[in-house]
């Protein structure tokens, strides 16, 4: 557990904050030290200059004696306990409480020994007259003490901030870990096979809640897909059994009933046709699965839907005519969408072929295109018998075949494929059934982005 604390994001964040805080404490401390040092030195220099001015004044009015007198007075002053004074003429001390020293002028630092202690002073030196040198300054011990004090406070602050950050980090990572552990446990339970389980959400709406909600949504989608998948594999297993069983029956009958080579040839032809039908069913199912997989979206390109529908009409017009129907198209404006040409050709082929195959002779089939609210709607309509509204939903189900069309060739996958292709293209499908107007299928595509304005 101790090691895992160090690996949590919460701990890493607190460590980062602690680091930043520690650095700012150091910078602040250095700043305070420099400022206070400068202020204290400025104060000493100002006092020293005032004292020197007083001594200079004394010398001007009463010469050496008066200057000596003022130094004595200053030495006796109660506020000047840690101040040092020196009045010397050519190296010989006239007055003061420190030994003679080299005569340097301006703000200077000097050191000397007094009763065995080394004393360092900061002060101001000046000449009152040629050879007559005066120095006043303060012991720097107090200045050093103040600095040491400030430094100590800063170090304490530094240590405290690190401790607080570590404690806070540990607390944050502990609560974070507790929740992520709960999520991980829930995920593991789900992996064990309980897909109904969901990750607990606290309801605070924080990041972890959002993550949990996203995972829950994903789980919902996965279980829906799995249900769909098992439904489909059930359907397939069920619906494939029928033609495979028929095939087997045919072969058995051929074995017992065939007498002549012609009988065998005929039976084999029929068996091959049945096998082809089964393969066709597989191919169609595989194609739907591939389209639903969505990997064809990479091949999308802009294409003119009006031109595509015109080609569809050209392709199917003779076919419709052969079936005794009429295929027409309304005048169409240019409409550009993004899509996979081959798949869209298949989508419209399926719709048009449905209208040809599932309607009586003499049906009129009409293709049209219109723009509604930023989308382009392709319509395949017929005036055949139509499909009752309550059946519309079922039409798109895999392997669903209407009672009326069971005698027609087909697998009941055409509209499932249409739905899969439409979904891949972000298109919606709407069936409109009017008793007198047959069936109308509207496929509504989003317009390609670059043509929306035109």
């Amino acid at each position, binding site marked *: 557990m101790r090691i895992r604390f160090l690996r949590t994001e919460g701990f890493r964040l607190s460590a980062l904050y602690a680091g930043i805080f520690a650095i700012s404490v150091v910078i602040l401390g250095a700043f305070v030290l420099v400022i206070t040092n400068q202020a204290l030195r400025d104060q000493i220099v100002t006092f020293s200059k005032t004292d020197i001015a007083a001594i200079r004044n004394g010398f001007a009015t009463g010469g050496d004696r008066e200057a000596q007198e003022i130094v004595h007075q200053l030495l006796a002053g109660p506020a000047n306990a840690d101040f040092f004074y020196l009045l010397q003429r050519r190296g010989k001390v006239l007055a003061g409480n420190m030994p003679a020293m080299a005569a340097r002028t301006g703000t200077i630092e000097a050191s000397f020994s007094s009763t065995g202690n080394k004393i360092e002073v900061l002060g101001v030196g000046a000449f009152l007259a040629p050879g007559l040198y005066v120095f006043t300054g303060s012991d720097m011990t107090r200045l050093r003490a103040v600095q040491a004090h400030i430094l100590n406070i800063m170090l304490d602050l530094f240590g405290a901030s690190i401790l607080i950050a570590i404690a806070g980090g540990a607390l944050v990572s502990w609560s974070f870990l507790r929740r992520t552990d709960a999520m991980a446990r829930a995920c593991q339970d789900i992996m064990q096979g309980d897909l109904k389980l969901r990750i607990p959400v606290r309801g605070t709406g924080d990041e972890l809640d959002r993550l949990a909600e996203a995972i829950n949504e994903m789980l919902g989608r996965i279980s829906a897909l799995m249900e769909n998948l098992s439904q489909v594999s059930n359907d397939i297993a069920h619906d494939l059994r029928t033609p495979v069983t028929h095939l087997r029956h045919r072969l058995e009958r051929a074995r017992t009933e065939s007498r002549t080579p012609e009988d065998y040839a005929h039976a084999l032809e029929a068996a091959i046709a049945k096998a082809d039908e089964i393969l*066709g069913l597989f191919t169609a199912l595989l194609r739907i699965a591939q389209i639903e997989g969505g990997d064809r979206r990479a091949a999308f390109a802009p294409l003119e839907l009006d031109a595509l529908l015109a080609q569809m009409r*050209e392709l199917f017009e003779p076919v419709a005519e*052969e*079936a005794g129907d009429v295929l027409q198209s309304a005048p169409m404006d240019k409409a550009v969408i993004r899509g996979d040409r*081959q798949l869209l050709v*298949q989508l419209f082929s*399926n719709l048009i072929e449905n209208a040809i195959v599932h309607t009586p002779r003499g049906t009129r089939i009409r293709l049209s295109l219109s723009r509604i609210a930023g989308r382009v709607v392709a319509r395949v309509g017929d005036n055949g018998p139509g499909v009752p509204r309550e059946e519309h939903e079922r039409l798109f189900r895999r392997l669903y075949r209407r009672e009326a069309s069971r005698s027609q*060739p*087909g697998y009941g996958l*055409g509209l499932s494929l249409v739905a899969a292709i439409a979904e891949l293209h972000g298109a919606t499908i709407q069936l409109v059934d009017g008793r007198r107007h047959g069936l109308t299928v509207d496929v509504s595509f989003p317009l390609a982005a670059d043509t929306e304005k035109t």
Partner: protein
Amino acid sequence: MLLAGIPVILHPPVIARTMTRCKPWFAVPVKILLIEDDKETSAHIVFALNGEGHDVTVCHDGQEGLEAARSGGQAALIVDRMLPGLDGLSMVKQLWAEGNHTPVLFLTTMSGLNDRVEGLKGGGDDYLVKPFAFPELLARVDAIARRGGAQDNEPVRLRAGDLELDLIRRTVHRGGKPIDLQAQEFRLLEYLMRNMGRVVTRAMLLENVWDLHFDPRTNIVETHMSRLRGKVDRGHGAELIHTVRGAGYTLRAD
């Protein structure tokens, strides 16, 4: 119905020289190299090809197949995409890199669009998705094998007997008399004439004439073919377009 289960495939436009004399499609035995790891599948394919008189050599892995193809002399290669040793696509790319441009028909169980495009870009001439019917395989092998010697010089006119198709003017004449064809009828006739003497299957026509890559439920090919025949053959003496039972169509002038 016989061809209903054939998954259809992408096919590049066929460019072939016009043949002045036509031979029956099945009477040109050639040497074919089949590279297919599945023993049962390859046995079936060999059986079908032998039935047409073709001389077939079989290899069961990619490396072995590459060696055999390098020795040359084959009119066509039939290559499975998934092979042990060296996969089919890499093998064909390798042959192309070595300057060996023997026509290739890819076989695959993968039916993704990308696989098809990849296969054709990688040096394949045609692509057939398993499972397939034998007539489909034979027609496609025949189409690519005979294209072997074809050059890129695009003909201006295609001729079959007294039928003449002008690719520049987009006109068709039979016995000197003009025939008025719609755009898709013209494309259909053009494809038949470019493959004169060979059988073309429904799937080949759907792919190459209409760019349809699925098996339609209505008789698109039959309907259009019947219209074309009505214009090209009816009332013009000898028939040029023939139905090949269980396989497709062929255009020939005997």
